[in-house]
Structures are given as structure tokens and as C-alpha cells.
């Protein structure tokens, strides 16, 4: 019996044709069909045709923008969430679309009897690699060099940008095509390059939309998920001269293809991110649906891979574990359209790999938080998070949003991201879906304590912490309380969830909660059965 079944969030949507917001269902369906006529929903496609298009909506609702950034001052996520909630069309489409991804993920996971075992293996492989990261990095570097690749090391984001700029300058490159990479976002690469006169062209459709709109990606997998087709039509009309009245998704996507293709053909260099870096072979693996990493990697004569040092895994064989988890967790598909393995430069070309630290080696030493380095950026924790779905990724004002963002953003800037760990209902759903078993919600809780102790959080929230303290400050008591009640939320003091700052609690009486809490499930199903599993991930 799949334990996950019991954890399925009660969305109450079964009697509404499977939708949380049936009013945004679209009668006509533009999505591609299979050879035998079935509607397809692979890649990031929705299971049910969706559109923010009820006729009334044609009176356009402007896209809510993200959090206001004021230097190092703490991000007011609740304020941005408030504006997102005040745009019901956007909010519902966003909620529905990500919930759909979450449900597809469940279906895909239930289809694999060894799912839990795979998660445990993935978690162990990552823990092992991180515990010997120095050795695996040296092995990777030696292999890559033996393959004829130039290897660079970047201490931080600025160094990454300088190194890549340097490589491009050395080759007299005037334009760079790139595929999606959260690492380059983290490094502020695009902004940096804007000052150099070298043109950077994003080739992932979602990322390109965001680039043309001068906005950061709002989700690690679907960067423009917070935008409606009207928003995209407006951006393309302004930047590519498409018909502003035509918001047909096919027209928009085709226009982008035609517009971007010459830029791809003429580009002097290509850059990709990295999903997995294989130590034993020096291989960089990318997973995409559009094939744009392969265009970036195979058309220009100069290729650069930007690699976060935590992407290492020891052997090719381990891809057999991670690939089975990644696309199923992210999209509910068994695999992405393209899984690409770059090892050696093509004849007559140059390949560079930049290994980026940017705080990762320091994070490794944080006892409570180092396991966040296991993250494979699947986005499942975001899709399942009620706060994220209702407030949009840009409301976090950080490169990484949603539950994973809450636990890694403060490592980049404690003051600026001090309020983010409070943007959580602590329902534990993120932890349940994470394919590498990061104890996300416990780390969120641990950050709250750290930030409160260091006086990084506003007084109001400190008061909230104190009042909730009895239950919240002692994880054991917290777990018992959750087990005793129906859900985490009911166990928490009501104002801890429904605080004036907790905007995302509005609009619905109770955020989604698991039918059975993770810990109750864990105790019931895992403890005693598999003690070895219990120990490492056991909740401190």
C-alpha cells in the first residue's frame, strides 16, 4: 500500500471535474494529441485544458509583479502575496496549474512500487557525495581535463560571471545562447552581461518570456507559470512585434521559434546549466523538454557549462536512480523529452566547465541545513505548497522560491531573506514529496529559531514565535501535537497561521493539509520496519 496515498492532500476537487477552480476551465483544447488521438499531457502540459479566459476576464487583469526589493531590507513576501491574491485570474490559473503538476506527480510516483526505496537511495547517494565532495570534485576535474575540457573554479557568483565573460572575450564572442540554469540566475549572470555588450539569448520559452519582460523566473521548472497567455501576448507584441490581439498559445510559441532561431544559428557561444555532473566520467547531464540545451551545446563552436558543485554524483549508474525520480517529481512524466550527456568537445570546438561554489562549501558545514544541498531542483515542493501556489514565486523576491527557497535563501543573505521561513503553513507536504528526502519543513522551523535568536526577524513575528513557542520550539512536542490533531494546522495556535501578515491564509478557510501528517505516517509505516532509514532522516 503506498503510503503516499494517505498523504494525498484533500483537494475536494473530485466533484468539480478534478479542478480546484472550475471557472477557469477552457472548453476548447489546443494541446497536442497523440498518434492515436489521445490528449497529451507530457512535459509541463496541463491534464485539463486551462485558461484564464472566462469572457469577463477579457477586460485584462494586469499581471501582479513580485516583491519590492529594497537593498538588503527584509523581503515583505506577504505584501507581494497580497497583490497576487488580489488578481484572482492569475492566482487561480497559477494555483490550478501547479496543483495539476502535483497530482500528475502523485500518479507517476504511485506507478512505481519502489518509489520510496528510490527516494532513499537518491538521498543516500547525495549524502555520500556531499560527505566526500572534495574527492569527487577532484575526480570530476581530472576526468574533464582528460576529456579535453577546460575546467574553471568560481568562488562566488561574481567570479562565475567574470570567468564566463573572460572566455567569451577571448573568443571574440558577441552573442551567447543559453538554456535554463538556476545557477546563472543565482549569480545574476544576465544582469552582469547586460553591461558587457555581449548579447545573451535565453532559449527556453518560459525563460525567454521572462527575459523579454525583464523579470526573474518565478519557478525552477516553469519560469513563466505566473503569467497568463494575455501577459505573454503583451510581452511578445512589445518585444517581437507579434499581434497584440492574438493570444493563441500556438501562435505565440511559433512566433518565438521563428524569432529565436536565427539568433541560435548566429550565436558565437552556447551555455547550459547542469542537472547532474558525473565524477567518474566528467560528464554534464541536462534534462530539458525543448531541446534547447542541445542547441546551445551543439550549434556554436564554443560551449560553456555552469555547474553548482553540489550537482556531483559519483557514477553514470546513479543516473538510473535520479532520472527515474526527477521528471516524475517535476512533471509527472517518466522522463523529459531530452536527457543529454556532454563529455567531450566536438572536433574543432572548445568546451569549458565552470564549477561554482557561491556559498555551497560553507553551507556544507551548517549542521541543520547541509542536506539542503541534496536538492535536484525538481520543483515538487513548490507545486505542493499552498503558500507558493497562492502567492507566486516572485513574491519571495529571491532566486529560489517556495519551500526550497525558504531554507537556502537565508544562506545567501540572512537579513534580506529573514522573513521567508515564516511563509509556510508547516504542513510538511514539501518534505513528503521531495525526491531526495530533504526534511524541508523541519529546516524551515530550524531557520525560524536561528533567525529569531539572531534578532533577524521583525518583532511582530517574534511575538508570534513566543506565543506558539510551547508547541513549536520543541520538535518532539510539535510532532506529538500534530499527531493528536487532524492536521498540523489545527495543532498550531490559530493566529500562527492566520496572522495579519499571513496573507496567503486568506481566500480559503483552511489551507490544504495532509490527511495524515508525515510524522504519524512515518511512525506508523517506517519506524521499526526500517530502522536504518529512521536514523539518518529522523527528525531532530
Amino acid at each position, binding site marked *: 500500500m503506498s503510503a503516499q496515498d494517505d498523504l494525498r492532500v484533500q483537494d475536494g476537487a473530485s466533484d468539480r471535474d478534478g479542478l480546484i477552480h472550475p471557472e477557469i476551465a477552457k472548453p476548447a483544447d489546443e*494541446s497536442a494529441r*497523440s498518434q492515436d488521438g489521445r490528449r497529451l499531457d507530457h512535459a*509541463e*502540459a496541463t491534464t485539463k485544458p486551462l485558461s484564464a479566459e472566462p469572457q469577463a476576464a477579457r477586460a485584462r487583469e494586469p499581471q501582479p509583479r513580485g516583491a519590492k526589493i529594497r537593498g538588503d531590507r527584509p523581503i515583505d513576501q506577504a505584501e507581494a502575496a497580497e497583490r497576487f491574491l488580489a488578481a484572482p485570474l492569475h492566482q487561480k490559473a497559477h494555483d490550478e496549474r501547479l496543483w495539476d503538476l502535483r497530482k500528475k506527480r502523485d500518479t507517476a510516483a504511485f506507478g512505481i512500487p519502489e518509489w520510496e526505496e528510490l527516494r532513499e537511495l537518491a538521498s543516500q*547517494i547525495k549524502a555520500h557525495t556531499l560527505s566526500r565532495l572534495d574527492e569527487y570534485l577532484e575526480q570530476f576535474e581530472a576526468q574533464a581535463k582528460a576529456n579535453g575540457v577546460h575546467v574553471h573554479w568560481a568562488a562566488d557568483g561574481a*567570479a562565475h560571471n567574470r570567468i564566463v565573460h573572460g572566455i567569451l572575450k577571448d573568443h571574440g564572442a558577441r552573442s551567447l545562447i543559453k538554456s535554463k540554469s538556476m545557477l546563472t540566475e543565482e549569480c545574476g549572470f544576465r544582469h552582469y552581461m547586460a553591461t558587457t555588450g555581449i548579447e545573451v539569448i535565453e532559449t527556453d520559452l518560459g525563460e525567454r518570456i521572462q527575459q523579454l519582460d525583464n523579470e526573474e523566473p518565478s519557478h525552477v521548472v516553469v519560469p513563466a507559470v505566473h503569467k497568463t497567455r494575455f501577459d505573454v501576448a503583451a510581452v511578445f507584441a512589445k518585444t517581437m512585434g507579434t499581434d497584440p490581439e492574438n493570444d493563441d498559445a500556438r501562435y505565440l510559441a511559433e512566433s518565438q521559434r521563428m524569432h529565436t*532561431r536565427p539568433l541560435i544559428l548566429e550565436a558565437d557561444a552556447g551555455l547550459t546549466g547542469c542537472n547532474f555532473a558525473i565524477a567518474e566520467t566528467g560528464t554534464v547531464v541536462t534534462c530539458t523538454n525543448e531541446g534547447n540545451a542541445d542547441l546551445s551545446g551543439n*550549434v556554436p563552436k564554443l560551449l560553456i557549462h555552469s555547474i553548482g558543485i553540489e550537482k556531483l554524483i559519483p557514477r553514470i549508474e546513479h*543516473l538510473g536512480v535520479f532520472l527515474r525520480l526527477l521528471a516524475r517529481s517535476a512533471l509527472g512524466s517518466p522522463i523529459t523529452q531530452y536527457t543529454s550527456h556532454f563529455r567531450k568537445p566536438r572536433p574543432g570546438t572548445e568546451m569549458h566547465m565552470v564549477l561554482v561554489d557561491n556559498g555551497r562549501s560553507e553551507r556544507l558545514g551548517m549542521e541543520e541545513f547541509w542536506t539542503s544541498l541534496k536538492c535536484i531542483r525538481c520543483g515538487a515542493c513548490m507545486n505542493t505548497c499552498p503558500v507558493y501556489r497562492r502567492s507566486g514565486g516572485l513574491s519571495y523576491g529571491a532566486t529560489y522560491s517556495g519551500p526550497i527557497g525558504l531554507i537556502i535563501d537565508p544562506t545567501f543573505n540572512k537579513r534580506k531573506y529573514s522573513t521567508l521561513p515564516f511563509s509556510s503553513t508547516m504542513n510538511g507536504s514539501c518534505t513528503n514529496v521531495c525526491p531526495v528526502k530533504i526534511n524541508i519543513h523541519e529546516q524551515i522551523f530550524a531557520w525560524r529559531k536561528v533567525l529569531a535568536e539572531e534578532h533577524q526577524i521583525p518583532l511582530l513575528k517574534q511575538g508570534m514565535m513566543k506565543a506558539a513557542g510551547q508547541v513549536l520550539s520543541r520538535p518532539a512536542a510539535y510532532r506529538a501535537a500534530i499527531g493528536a490533531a487532524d492536521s498540523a494546522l489545527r495543532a498550531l495556535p490559530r493566529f500562527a497561521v492566520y496572522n495579519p501578515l499571513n496573507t496567503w491564509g486568506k481566500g480559503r478557510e483552511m489551507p490544504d493539509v495532509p490527511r495524515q501528517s508525515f510524522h504519524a505516517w512515518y511512525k506508523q509505516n517506517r519506524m521499526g520496519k526500517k530502522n536504518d532509514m529512521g536514523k539518518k532522516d529522523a527528525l531532530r
Partner: protein
Amino acid sequence: MSARETTLATIRKNRPAGDHPLPEIPLFAPLVGDDLVAEFGERLKRMGGRVADVVPGEDPFASVRERLETAKVIASTVPEITGNRDLARVALPRDLADVDVAVVRAVFGVAETGSVLFTQEQLQVNSVAYLAQHLVVLLDPADILDTIQTAYRRPDFAQASYAVLHTGPSATADIEGVLIHGAQGVRSLTVILLPRNSAEQ
């Protein structure tokens, strides 16, 4: 200290406590039935690919004949189809931008996902698999593996300069979740189940 030395030294200083052995990876039982050809075809179709069975005695390329006949530029790496663009003489990868149909043979297929594997050796010029409008793939039914795990135990990945699993055509749903094929790469991918020795028959 160089960035390399600093990062490695910091990692050594911050090595997580405890023992974290590398687990043995068990070989999981395949979740596909015995008919690997049928399983492969079903998975591929769900990922937006097309699959053509070959009826003995009939034109194996019947399903793509029209596409081949209307194509101006065909790049073929297989003896079964003669193209009009010689990949051995392509100066730059971008010169393949006008290819209408590319025909290549897969190293193997994977039933669990409906994927096919190409390496730089098959593709000759890697960009052909992305710049062409349509991709026609020959796959020997005997070359279909059961699972992804089995696939990653093959030596191809460690040997090839570039190896890629294609599972259906280029796809995007970045605009409101509407699925569109041909985002940046090929608009269609058709697998023709044709044994390797068919050219000599």
C-alpha cells in the same frame, strides 16, 4: 589561495559528521510487460512521438513516405534512405538549418520511457537532430531495453563524446500549460521499427 584551493579546503573543513556510505543500487524488476516493442510504442506515443510498425514485404517507410517525398532537404545517416545533404561535408552545424527531414538510427530504445539513444557517432553532426524540422528514427526491435536502469548500465554513456536520449519531439507548455510540439527543436519524431540488417536484404 586559488578559488579551487579555497573551495576544496572549505569542503574539507565542513565535511558533514557521520558515516554516509554509498548504497548498493539493486536492479529493480522492470515495470514493463514482456512485449517490449508494444510497451516502447505505448510510452513513446504518450510522450508525443509516433511509431510505425513494419509489415514484412511492404514499404517500411510508408508512414513517412509523403514527408520524405515533399521534403526539399533530407539528411540521412542510414543506408536505407538516400538523402541529399551529405553530413560528412557539412562545414558548420548551423548549415543544417534548412534540413526538412533527418533520418538516423538509434543505438537502442528504452521501453520504460519510450526513449531512443543517439551518440555523436550516429548523428555525425549533432545539430541535425535539433535543427531538422522532423526526425525519423530507425530502431531495431531487438535493441529495445526494458528500463532506464538497464540503459545506464550500458557502456555507451561513458564512451561517447555526446550521448542523448530523445523521448518524443521537442515540446513546451510554458504558455498556460498548452502542449506544443516543436518548441525549438524537431516538430515530430517518428520511430520506424526496422531491423539493422534490413538494408542488405
